[in-house]
């Protein structure tokens, strides 16, 4: 068993992985084809056999019904996809992508790999995170932790440009998700101040605009819509994708469409493309503005802007951010690879602090401790959790401090005076993690001895507006009359574990339970078998 930790950026359109190389530097590991990124596309060519990556992309056009793209957008949904009679969950499909990455990495490194850190968009909710974790497990990884993509990007950047404390805005526009995150980084402290985004906004939406535009232009002339059939659509999509990339560097692109015997080359200029996607850019801008406003900040407070995700290569996005953050610097990070490297580094920092790759980091820290006021070693925020997964930190070397914040409020289902259900938010959005919040409630009925805490995620006041991510029944409470005050305490840490305490205020007797918001990951055997039995190449 090797100790190598694979950092995996499981993206909507592309996935990438990074390991610490023989020079002690975290770098992206190319796949078997030699490309740094692998398309997140799966094609089943027969029952129980699939290809992933470039080869699959080429097959999608020929066999769209047995291919799957953008599975990340389906994560967390209760759906199944059918390939030759076998039903696969989105987790299983993602697991097949991870399995391909794992196989390629093992081939390149020459030994088995088991440990991995997988990134998720900051705006993913518990169900989506849980599905991603499950995918990692199904692929045979020991998922050490899950890390938010902006945080990973910031780590990759921050450890490279080790230095003073500064405020960074991570603008992450990927293939299918959008996150904007404000972080304070300095040394090895990465503190997420606030994060917002949209799990349904990404480069795919720009592609769709182009596809719609071209298809409608074609349909207007030839009375046939290439979107109507899966194969012409996939072909059109490929061409539009290429055109979108071309438009980032060229003023115009030509998209040839050949459908139902009619041929038409449709020219799209960059101006046209920008006009038809202006509202999407606007949406990104609004999200970022609102996030800053919610933290009483302005763009002037931002020292650095990290542009992450392939879609930030579009001039309109870059131009928009540069216009807004006129005073900030734009360090050159690789939009495609930074997240995987950050994931790898985060895994190493957290779980293998004595790794040789961190030699330079330790060196820098020492210099800093000499030159400036010694920075008191902060106690590990999640001491209990850290103890289980990482060896105790040797004294003198400070632990890396990755501080996330909640992206979705956590609450509890309570009853009001008329015994109607209501949602009480205990941990607000943007609360730094780990955190402890409590709310005071009362016994709803005389002599009750058990209380059911239904943990909710999301903004809302009634059950329909939020997700119930888990429920804990706490028993053995002392029987008390109705109205007796009771405290519910939420302790939430970076590993998505929520501890719930219920405290009888007058007697201070309490009971507690833990809830892993990523789910208990039970009953996975069948799915594990399915993924392990599916041939991937």
């Amino acid at each position, binding site marked *: 068993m090797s100790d190598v930790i694979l950092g995996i950026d499981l993206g909507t359109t592309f996935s990438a992985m990074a390991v610490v190389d023989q020079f002690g530097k975290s770098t992206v590991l190319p796949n078997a084809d030699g490309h740094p990124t692998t398309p997140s596309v799966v094609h089943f060519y027969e029952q129980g056999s699939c290809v992933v990556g470039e080869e699959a992309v080429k097959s999608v056009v020929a066999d*769209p*019904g*047995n*291919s*799957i*793209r*953008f599975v990340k957008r*389906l994560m967390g*949904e*209760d*759906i*199944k*996809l*059918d390939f030759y009679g076998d039903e696969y969950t989105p987790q299983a499909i993602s697991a097949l992508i991870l399995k391909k990455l794992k196989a390629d990495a093992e081939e390149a490194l020459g030994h088995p790999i088991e440990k991995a850190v997988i990134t998720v968009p900051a705006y993913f909710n518990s169900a989506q995170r849980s599905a991603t974790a499950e995918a990692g497990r199904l692929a045979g990884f020991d998922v050490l932790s899950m890390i938010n993509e902006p945080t990973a990007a910031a780590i990759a950047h921050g450890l490279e440009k080790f230095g003073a404390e500064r405020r960074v805005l991570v603008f992450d526009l990927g293939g299918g998700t959008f996150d904007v995150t404000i972080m304070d980084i300095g040394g090895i402290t990465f503190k997420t101040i606030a994060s917002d985004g949209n799990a349904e906004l990404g480069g*795919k939406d720009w592609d*769709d605009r182009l*596809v*719609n535009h071209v*298809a409608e232009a074609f349909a207007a002339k030839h009375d046939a*819509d290439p*979107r*109507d059939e*899966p*194969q012409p*659509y*996939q072909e059109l*999509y490929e061409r539009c994708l290429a055109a979108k990339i071309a438009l980032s560097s060229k003023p115009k692109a030509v998209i040839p469409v050949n459908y139902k015997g009619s041929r038409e080359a449709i020219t799209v200029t960059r101006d046209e493309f920008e006009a038809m996607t202006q509202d999407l850019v606007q949406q990104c801008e609004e999200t970022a503005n609102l996030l800053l406003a919610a933290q009483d900040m302005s763009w002037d407070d931002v020292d650095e802007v990290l542009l992450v995700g392939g879609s930030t290569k579009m001039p309109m996005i870059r131009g928009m951010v540069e216009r807004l953050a006129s005073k900030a610097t734009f360090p050159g990070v690789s939009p495609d690879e930074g997240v995987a490297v950050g994931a790898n580094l985060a895994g190493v920092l957290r779980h293998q602090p004595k790794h040789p790759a961190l030699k330079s980091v330790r060196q820098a820290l020492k210099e800093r401790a000499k030159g400036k006021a010694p920075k008191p070693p902060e106690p590990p925020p999640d001491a209990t959790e850290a103890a289980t997964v990482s060896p105790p930190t040797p004294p003198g070397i400070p632990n890396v401090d990755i501080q996330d914040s909640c992206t979705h409020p956590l609450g509890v289902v309570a009853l009001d005076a008329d015994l109607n259900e209501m949602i009480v938010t205990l941990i607000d959005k943007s609360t730094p993690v780990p955190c402890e919040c409590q709310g005071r409630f009362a016994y709803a009925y005389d002599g009750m001895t058990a209380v059911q805490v239904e943990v909710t995620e999301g903004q809302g006041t009634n059950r329909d507006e939020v997700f119930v991510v888990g429920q804990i029944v706490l028993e053995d409470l002392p029987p008390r009359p109705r109205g007796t005050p009771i405290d519910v305490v939420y302790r939430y840490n970076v590993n998505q574990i929520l501890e719930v305490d219920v405290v009888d205020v007058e007697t201070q007797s309490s009971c507690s339970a833990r809830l892993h918001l990523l789910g208990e990951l039970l009953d996975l055997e069948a799915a594990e078998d399915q993924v392990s039995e599916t041939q991937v190449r």
Partner: protein
Amino acid sequence: MEPQALDDIHRFTASVEHEDLFSYLGVERDTEKNALIHALRVRRSWAQGQQANPKFRTEALWLIKNIELVKDALTTNQRAYIYDLEQREERRNLETLSMFIKGTLADGDLTVRGEEAIQQQGEALGLPESVVIRRIGEILAERDAGTIRSPDPPPDAAVEVPDTDDLYAILGASPDATEQELEDAYRKRYRWARQLRDTDKSSRVYSLLDEAWRVLQDPARRAEYDNARTRNDARPSSVEPNDGASRVGFLPPPPPTNALSLPTPSVEKHLASVLNPDEPVIATSIDSRDRPAPPPPTVPPLGERTLEAAEANPTPPESDEERPRGPIVEDQPIEPLLDPLVDLEVPARSEPLAGLDLQELEPKNPVFAGFNLDDLDMGFNAPSDGDEAVLSLGPSATSTAVDALDGLDGDLMDKPGLASDGLNIGDPDDALSAGQIYNNLAELRVEGPRLIRIRTGNHPFPVRITVANAGAGSMPTTVRCDAPWVQISPPFLDPDRQRQTIEALVEPDGMPGNAAKATLTIEAEHGETETVVIDALKYVVSPLTMLVSATVTLIVFLLIAAGHFLGMLGSDIGTPTNTILAVSVNPPAGEVYINDELVGNQGTLSLVDSFPTDTPLQVRVELDGFEPFLREVTLKRGESLRIEADLVLRDAVAFVPEPGMVEAELDTDAVDAALAARKEHFDNCFTRNLRTNTPFGAEIEVTCTVTNRGFIHGVSFGAANFRSPAVQACLRRQLRALKLPLIPGDYARFERVLGVDIQPRTALNDEINP
């Protein structure tokens, strides 16, 4: 299946513009299970390929997510799904129909033509006729409640149809206008009239415009009219009244508070013994329940009704408990009930109740104030033809009184018509001296009763009066009415027609009280004048009336109680001796006539003691487009009878080839194609109307006559292995909707056997339709 799940599926199919999952998958409803699953798998694969396609993303994702639900609806729970689809379709069709009805009503009142259009629409939507008629009634009720508004008046409301007899002026065109100009003018006026808020006015304008247009559009008649016009003919109008343009007021079933008491089961049992059991139309509820078991399974039970038909039959209101109500009616003072026109006074048998002055209680409405609403009844007019004297019987008319009247009636009938006697008709000199150019041999004759008593709700009630020219020559005639709540159409009669019908539309909203009289004056230019009195009773409970009737009931009850206690009153006062005739009409808009007197159009009607007993009565129910229903009954005093009048749709355009007409050969392929195109409708006729316990193939022979234009007119039925008038009526409608190609001869015939397999009712259906 969960209603929520069905809703989801329905929302999905609607969003992808499909009727149901079957059409979405491109399969038939009766496709076998494996083929269905295959079609679903193909679509699922498509969805997986298109789930990222912006055009189909929502659709594809929904299908992927809900694949199990869809599979369930198509296979395991297919019956429940199809049942749900049918329910939705009917609701949607009803909604469409409602929009159509509202659109029709926005133009003004409901005309016969409008109603035909509605019926056609309903037929096209596959809705049963009874449902359509009920919906019309409901919407009329809604409109009366003020929920449907007419569109705003047009900006050029200044355009006014002049009050003139000049047809050109009516259309707003010059006499030398071309045909196109005339048509444009007509259409402009017509559009304007459509938008009038005042429906009375617009309907008046319509009739004027229609009449003017009918004359002027025909070159021959226009030339004739122009000639008459240039000769400065003094004829007021040469318009031809439209016989068919009468309006039908549909009424929703009366609310239960107004419901008249119906025979109690004990009475019905008695009835069953009295009635001839072979009369299928007179059915009591006991009768149908007590019938022997249905015939052998291959033949559907005859007595069974379809669901729709069962719904359409208004449930008879619960019978009131037997209260000693009879004496209230018996003891009504007869005086106020007598019509001023009545020459003959019917002696009242009972003494009026002492100390009860009804007139004082409700001076405005002396006639009906004292009635308990449950006992309200109609005055009865003896049949009269051309008589000025109209005999009106109060509720307490006894058999002796009726005998006396009958005798008198006979005497009157033997004499020459009073009207003819009293007028100088047939004298040409008189007419010529009046400066008229028409032949004055005309003789005005009003057919039917001169006193028409109607009861109505809030809806307009059409009264038709037939005016005939018993003589020769032309007879320009005007019709006037002294009451503003009666609209006359047409106000001028065609001088050249021998017989025509005036429609007097009673608008109860305009009535000064709950009861009012209107006098129609029919005035022929040669000097004859006839009057017809409409005595209308609004069928609305006013608080005062309720108070009065409650008071009367209480007083009478006390009197009866006192009478029993003291033993002072006669024995007949405490026992109910009411004679009740109930007529239940389906569809509920039919007009009920008893011995030619219009007594109501409310659907279900109960008459208490307001008709002659022990003599034959003719009950006639009429509704436009339906075969009239006729029944002769004789009721003994104290008996009760319920008549179920199920009207049968008239095959209005039966085609009978005349001698000399050439029968053509039909293109059988075209017939088969046309029949196949509507096969679903034909099948529905069977499946919706037939129920069976064992599967059987229903078959019926049909013979259709095709006109040279390709329309099917005559439809007759031959041998069938079931009996169901409902199927025949439905098939007739559906067949008449066929359109075949033009044929070379004058007419053609074809015979076909239509049929479908009828499946037995299932536990599922029984569960859903208890």
